[in-house]
């Protein structure tokens, strides 16, 4: 495998409301920031993750290109998924060996519609979508299948919100109460970007965050065809990415619901002393389509700033953790 490393990460100061910016306007400063951090103006490959249903605008990724400038023409691709999966595509593209840098970004505004019902549109159109099964409802079925201890979940919310308050990019959410229990990730607008470099190009950076392993696995879509109490696809991706080959200082997990943390922690086989979601995680800021990419960015940032030597990032897609991506970031190859 060709060595690939993350050398720059940036994200918006996320908001819990529509701050009056379009998606390209939200994205532009973030692109500018990773350009400055990486010292690169142009990239061998560009890949983004977004979802047209969030803003209800067709081809929203096309208009987003205005925020980076696509002239002279650039090599670009897009996934209708979280930006983390765009990063995977960029990593694969860099394996070809003919380009040495990639720009990856994800963005989303969930303030514009009812996210819980927008998420119904991702379900199969024959058996699930006609029922009007919304995001909270299918997550509730998984929480029930897991049967997690309520006190454990409350503690996860308290920790996530406290960490989020210490993170200048996350929302400033108070300690949970009975009315605002915080088990569901908040509505958030935001964007994030990452720069990857490969091969010889990495040597130009004093402290890169090497992607020593990255893999994603998917399982059946229909909720009744799988065991919702665990995440086999995460476990398989973790094995393929080599999570267990060394200590894990930090793990950033794409937990949009508190009950997903114990499921993922178990699937990833994380040791007790691994710090989970020190950024606050999605329970403190969930700009959908950027949230997973931010997990990779936050994990990489800790390697870049020297506070972690080896970190794990997780991103998910689909209902009830259907599709999971795991990446291992390390200060050394």
């Amino acid at each position, binding site marked *: 495998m060709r060595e690939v490393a993350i050398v720059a990460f940036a994200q918006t100061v996320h908001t819990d409301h*529509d701050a*009056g910016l379009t998606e390209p306007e939200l994205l532009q400063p973030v692109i500018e920031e990773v350009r400055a951090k990486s010292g690169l103006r142009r990239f061998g490959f560009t890949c983004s993750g977004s979802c047209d*249903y969030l803003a*209800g605008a067709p081809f929203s990724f096309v208009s987003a290109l205005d925020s980076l400038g696509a002239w002279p023409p650039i090599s670009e691709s897009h996934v209708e998924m979280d930006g983390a999966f765009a990063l995977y595509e960029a990593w694969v593209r860099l394996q070809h060996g003919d380009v040495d840098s990639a720009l990856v970004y994800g963005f989303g505004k969930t303030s514009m519609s009812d996210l*819980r*019902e927008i998420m*119904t549109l991702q379900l199969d*159109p*024959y*058996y*699930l979508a*006609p*029922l*009007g*099964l*919304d995001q909270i*409802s*299918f997550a*509730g*079925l998984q*929480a*029930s*299948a897991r049967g997690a201890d309520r006190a454990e979940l409350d503690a996860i919310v308290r920790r996530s919100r406290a960490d989020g308050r210490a993170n200048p990019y996350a929302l400033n959410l108070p300690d949970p109460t009975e009315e605002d229990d915080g088990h569901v990730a908040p509505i958030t607008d935001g964007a994030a970007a990452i720069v990857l470099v490969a091969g010889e190009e990495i040597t130009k950076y004093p402290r890169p965050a090497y992607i020593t392993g990255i893999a994603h696995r998917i*399982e*059946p879509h*229909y*909720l*009744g*065809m*799988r065991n*919702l109490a665990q995440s086999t696809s995460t476990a398989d991706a973790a094995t393929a990415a080599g999570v267990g080959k060394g200590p894990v200082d930090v793990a950033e997990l794409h937990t949009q619901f508190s009950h997903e943390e114990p499921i993922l922690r178990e699937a990833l086989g994380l040791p007790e002393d691994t710090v989970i979601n020190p950024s606050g995680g999605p329970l403190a800021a969930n700009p959908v389509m950027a949230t997973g990419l931010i997990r990779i960015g936050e994990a990489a940032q800790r390697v870049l700033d020297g506070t972690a030597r080896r970190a794990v990032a997780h991103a998910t897609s689909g209902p009830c953790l259907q599709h999971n991506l795991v990446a291992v970031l390390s200060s050394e190859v």
Partner: protein
Amino acid sequence: MTTESELSATYVLEFPGGYTRTTGPVIGRFLTELRDARIVGVRTADQRTLVPPLEYDPHTGDPVTEEFVQVGPAGTVAEWVWVQAPRKNHPLDRPFAWALIKLDGADTTLVHAVDAGHKKAMRPGLRVRPRWRAERIGQITDIECFVPDVTMIVSPVRAEYTITPGRALTRFLEGVRDGVFLAGHCATCDKVYVPYRISCPECGSLIAAERQVSDTGTITTFAINNLPDPRAPQVPFVSAYILLDGADTPMIALVGDVPAHEVRQGMRVRAVWLPESERTLAMTNIKWFAPTGEPDAELEN
């Protein structure tokens, strides 16, 4: 500066009339059977039954067989989550449960709604059956929802009777109509019973002597009632045992014209009668007993 609200609008993204989708033979068979109020699963190569049917075995990726088998319609709830406030797109407009239901004969679970009435009616293991729509069109919503099996029924019980008070009570009510309380005196036991009776409950002798007792008496014990009763004027009301002067047994009656918290044992009371012209052969001739204002009486044990 232009404010956000000045330039804010609502717009709708919609496929008018809905988006047309082909079903393929496997899903199409399931939906066709559903229209006929039957639920079928499809067999996989390793003889598992997938419900709802998929075109490929989710475990192996192999095509499923062409063998469809009827399952259910009853099944067992595996997992459930309660929806207290249904959304407009939900199948029911009242609180319900989402559930993963293992239909009898299936190896997988089906996602659907359960109309259980109350959260406490839901549990893993609950037996449920589909409630079919009368008009079925070949959609998963042809099953309106699932409902719990019948495990309980409500039995109405009602019988009508014609009752008469009997000789003793008739005689007592005649007294009440005339504004007096009639008692029976047992010569053997030397006891005076109110209301009037024709035999002594202690010795069984016939009671020959009819005796009139006073309409004043003493409260021996009482209860403050906070639940409304059609026979009482208001809540709270006081019902008491009243030992009429000259009687040896107390009589139950309401106490009125006094705040409930002032009623006490030993309190002296007098019957408040309806005006003579309104009296009938009924206990309602006595509105209640009201305090006389006399000093409290000493109660014997």
